[in-house]
C-alpha cells in the first residue's frame, strides 16, 4: 500500500518533527510511504484570501504529485479540508478535472482518521503518562468530522484526556486572520488558553500546526513556559 505523505507547508518550515512522527506512524503500521519532494502548499492561504486561481494551480500541482499513491495522508485537518472539500465542492465544480479531484479527495485522509478509520490501528509506538487536553481544529472537526479519532489514539498511548470547556471553539488562528485582525485573534486565543489552563493538563494537543503555533505563542507570551503544546502525532509516535 503506497501512501503519499503531504507534509504541509507549516510542518515543513516550522516543526519537521511532526512530519517525522507521521512518517514513523505510517511506516510502523506497514505502509510504504513516499514523500514527493516538490510539494509546497495545498493552496488554502490563497483560496481564503480571494486568490482562486492560485488555489486551483496549487491543487493541480498536488494532484500531479500524488496521482500514483493509493492514499494520501496529511497531519492537518485544515489542508485535508482544502483537498477533500474545497476542490470538489467549489474550485473544480463543473469543470473537466472534477473526476480527478474526486478521486484524490476519496483517497486523501487526515492522519488520525487514516490511522483509526482506515488502518484500524490498535496500538501506537508512543507512551505518554500524564493528562492532556485536546483542541478540536475547526476544519478537521466541521468539514471532516475529526473528533474521536485523535482522542482514541492518545488514550492508546496511555494519555488521560481532560476535556476543556469549549474544545470545539475556534482558537482564533484562521490563517491570515491571525495577522490581519490580530487583536480579535489574540482575544479568541486568550479565551482558548483560559479553557486550557482550567483543565490543569500538562499538555495541549491538537491536529493542526497553525492552531498549535497560535496557542503556544499566547501561552508563552503570558508567561506559561511549562504547558507542552504538541501535535497528536508527536505524542502517539513517542516523540513528544
Amino acid at each position: 500500500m503506497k501512501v503519499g505523505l503531504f507534509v504541509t507547508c507549516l510542518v515543513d518550515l516550522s516543526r519537521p518533527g511532526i512530519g517525522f512522527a507521521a512518517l514513523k506512524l505510517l511506516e510502523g503500521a506497514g505502509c510504504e510511504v513516499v514523500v514527493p519532494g516538490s510539494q509546497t502548499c495545498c493552496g488554502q492561504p490563497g483560496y481564503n484570501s480571494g486568490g482562486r486561481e492560485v488555489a486551483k494551480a496549487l491543487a493541480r500541482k498536488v494532484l500531479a504529485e500524488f496521482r500514483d499513491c493509493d492514499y494520501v495522508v496529511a497531519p492537518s485537518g485544515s489542508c485535508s479540508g482544502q483537498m477533500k472539500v474545497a476542490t470538489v465542492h467549489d474550485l473544480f465544480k463543473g469543470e473537466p478535472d472534477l473526476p480527478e479531484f474526486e478521486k484524490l479527495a476519496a483517497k486523501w485522509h487526515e492522519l488520525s482518521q487514516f490511522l483509526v478509520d482506515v488502518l484500524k490501528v490498535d496500538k501506537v509506538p508512543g507512551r505518554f503518562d500524564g493528562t492532556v487536553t485536546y483542541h478540536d481544529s475547526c476544519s478537521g472537526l466541521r468539514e471532516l468530522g475529526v473528533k474521536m479519532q485523535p482522542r482514541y489514539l492518545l488514550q492508546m498511548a496511555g494519555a488521560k484526556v481532560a476535556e476543556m470547556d469549549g474544545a470545539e471553539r475556534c482558537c482564533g488562528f484562521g490563517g491570515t486572520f491571525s495577522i490581519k485582525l490580530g487583536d480579535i485573534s489574540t482575544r479568541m486565543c486568550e479565551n482558548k488558553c483560559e479553557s486550557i489552563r482550567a483543565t490543569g493538563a500538562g499538555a495541549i494537543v491538537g491536529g493542526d500546526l497553525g492552531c498549535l503555533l497560535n496557542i503556544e505563542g499566547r501561552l508563552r507570551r503570558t508567561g506559561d513556559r511549562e504547558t507542552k503544546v504538541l501535535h497528536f502525532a508527536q505524542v502517539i509516535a513517542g516523540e513528544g
Partner: protein
Amino acid sequence: MQIQSMFFKQRATEKLGDALLQGNMKKAKGKFVDGRARAVAEFGVWEELRTHAAMIRDRALANLDAYLVEFERNATRRGAVVHWAESAEDACRIIVDIATRNGVKKVAKSKSMVSEEVNLNERLEEAGIQVVETDLGEYILQLAKEPPSHIVAPAVHKSKEQVAELFVQAHGKPRLTEIPAMTREAREALRDHFLTADMGISGSNFVIAETGTTLTVTNEGNADMVTTLPRIHCVITGIEKVIGTFEDFASLIRLLPRSAIGQTITNYLTLTTGLKMPGDADGPEQMHIVLVDAGRTKLVGSDLQEMLRCIRCGACMNHCPVYQNVGGHAYGWVYPGPMGSILTPVYVGLENAGDLPNAATFCGECAVACPVKIPLPDLMRKLREQQFDRKLRPWAERMAIAGWSFMATRPALYALFAKVGARVGSWLGGREGLIHSLPGIDGWTKGRDMPAPQGRTFRELYKQKSREHG
C-alpha cells in the same frame, strides 16, 4: 443608520477593551447558544427541517417576481395598499408621505431592522413626527440614542444596571433593580403611546403570497398593539421576505424561534391580513405595505443569492466567536456578525466595508447554526475574491499573496526560501525559540510570541535521512 463599517478594525479593538461590554456579552452568549442547542436536540429531526426550510426559501427566491405579485394581489384584495420602494430613500419618502397626508403626529413602532437600514426614524422626525419604539430593547436604545447591536436582541450589549439608569432619567421614578419591575415600568410608559399613536409601523418576518398576510414574531405582544390600535398600519419589509404559502410559514416558524433563542415558539405571533372588516373588533382603517429592494435584487442570480434565504434569527452571530468578542456595534452598520459581513458590503459597497468579509476565521460555526443552510463562510470568501480581483485590499497584503503564489508554484525556489526562512526564523527565535516581534506580522506578535522554526525544513532533513539510509 450612519455607515461606520469601514472602521471595523479600530472599533473592534475599542470594544475588546470595553470591560463592561465584555461582561455583558459573556452573559448573553450562554443563553443564546445553550438555548438553541437544547431546542435543537429536543426537536429530533432538525437537519431534515433545515433542508426543507432552505428549499422553501430557494423556491421563494426562484419565484420572487411571481410571489411578490401574488402577494400584492391578495393583500390589495383585503384592502391594503402595496408600495414598491426601490431604494432606502424611496421607502422613507413613501412612509413620510403617508404620515403627513394623514396628519400623523405620533408613530408607535414595533421592531424592524429594515427601518434601521433605511433610516426611517430620522426621516419621520425630520418631518416633525414623534416616533416611539415599543419593542423593549429598541425602546431602551431609543432612550440611549444608540443603534441596535443585535438583530433579535437589540440591547444585548447593555447590562441591567445601565438600563436602570436610563429609566431613571427617562421616567423620573426611583431606581429599580429587578428586571420584572423595570419591564412593568416600561409597559406603563408605552401603554399611553399605543393608545395615542396615529400610525403603527411594524416590520414583517415573512410575507405570505397566497393570502397577502404579513406577520411578526415578538415576545412582548407590542406588535399586536402596533398593528391593531392605531388607525393606520404601515408595514416595512424587504422583498426577499416573501414565501409562498401558509404551510411554508408553518415550517419556517418551527425553525425561527428555536434558532434565535431556543424557544419552541415566541409568545406572540402577529398575523395581519388587510384592514378592519365589518364585524372585526379591531384593526386599522388604512394598511400600507412598503416592500423594499435597496440592493436585494442585486443579489438575485448572483453567486451570493443564498444570502437572501436569511430569516433573521441571529444564530450566526450568536455562534460567531468574532461577534461574541466584539459585539454588534463594531460592525458599523445595521447587520452584525456573519450575515452582516455579507449584507453590509453588498448594501453599502464593498469598498466601505473591506474588513467585514475578512472578519472571520472560517471556523464554520455559523454555517452549522444557520437554520436555512446559508454557506456563510463560502459567501464571505466570494466577497474576498471580489476584493482580490478589484484590488481592494491593502498593497502590502496583495504583494504578500502575490509573492507567496509565485513561490508556492515553483518548488525549487520555494524550497530555497523555506530553507533560508527556517534558518533565519530559528536565529530570530534565539535560545527560547520564540520570536517576540517581527515587522510585517505585528498583528500576531502584539499579543503573542511566534514559536520559531527549528533551523532545518522537513524536506531537507528527509532528504538527508534518505541518503544516510541509502
